[in-house]
């Protein structure tokens, strides 16, 4: 017999689990749920334009990119040139990290290296528009050092993640 949970899909199960959490919390304290939903709506309104850009990129990647091209620039065959591409794209990408998962999932399916996905995600933490705010609180010296270290560590992060994912894959197989 087929497992009905598998038919629903992990993505919908996740949303159902969160909805149930809201439901149980609502039974206990309705005000918390109302406030959380208000925050949710504000966030959703803010995210929609960025999500539009991300889905436009997903569409363009489906239209123009094939596994051969992705492999050449961001895959195993990209050698050294994939790293600056992932770093700069990560720094320049806007919006919260989770909005980029659909595009990265698409590129991964087309052959993007795990290391470069990790590098992209890590460099999303470097926010150029917010640097003046950081300097105000922490000073120029600290901001320059911490930003430089984050970019440097992103490469280490990518290499270690890729190596361990591959190793786990081998031992798990």
């Amino acid at each position, binding site marked *: 017999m087929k497992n009905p949970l598998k038919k629903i899909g992990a993505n919908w199960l996740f949303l159902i689990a969160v909805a149930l959490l809201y439901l149980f919390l609502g039974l206990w304290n309705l005000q918390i749920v109302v406030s959380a939903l208000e925050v*949710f709506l504000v*966030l959703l309104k803010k995210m929609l334009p960025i*999500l539009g850009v991300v889905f436009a990129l997903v569409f363009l990647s*489906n239209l123009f990119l094939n596994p051969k091209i992705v492999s050449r620039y961001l895959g195993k065959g990209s050698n050294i040139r994939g790293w600056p591409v992932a770093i700069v794209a990560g720094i320049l990408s806007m919006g919260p990290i989770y909005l980029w998962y659909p595009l990265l999932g698409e590129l991964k399916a087309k052959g993007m290296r795990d290391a470069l996905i990790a590098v992209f995600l*890590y460099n999303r933490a470097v926010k150029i528009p917010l640097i003046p705010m950081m300097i105000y*609180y922490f000073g120029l010296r600290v901001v320059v050092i*911490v930003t430089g270290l984050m970019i440097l560590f992103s490469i280490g*992060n990518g290499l270690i993640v890729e190596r361990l994912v591959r190793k786990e894959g081998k031992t798990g197989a």
Partner: protein
Amino acid sequence: MESSRWKRAVRGLLNNIKMSSPILLGVLLLIGLINTLVPKEFFSRIFTGNNALDPLIGAVFGSIAAGNPLTSYLIGGELLISGVSLVAVLAFIVSWVTIGTVQLPAESLMLGRKFALLRNGISFLMAIAIAVLTVLISGLFG
């Protein structure tokens, strides 16, 4: 040939939206809940004043926190003013912007569970390392 490429691209986009929409909505709902349940003043009460323990505490709570990086800088700035060590504050803000505990289910579903767990775990250790190194290097110039 050309029209089939467009059709394929549209179909791919629709599949992507169908797959990712429930996950993104779930993450936004979770962030809404955490932002409501955890008031910003909470963070100023978690640090102990212990130089060895505070960076770890900063990294743990920075990983769990969710929201705009700007919020992390504001909280970090206030923590510094209230006397929390720079290394603890840096561990807090670096883990806030590089680790996504709330987004972990979404990252696992779309990029693979092993990848998501390893990436976030390694980022946690790196947040502490970056905080310590920043303070050490900054001290050399200063």
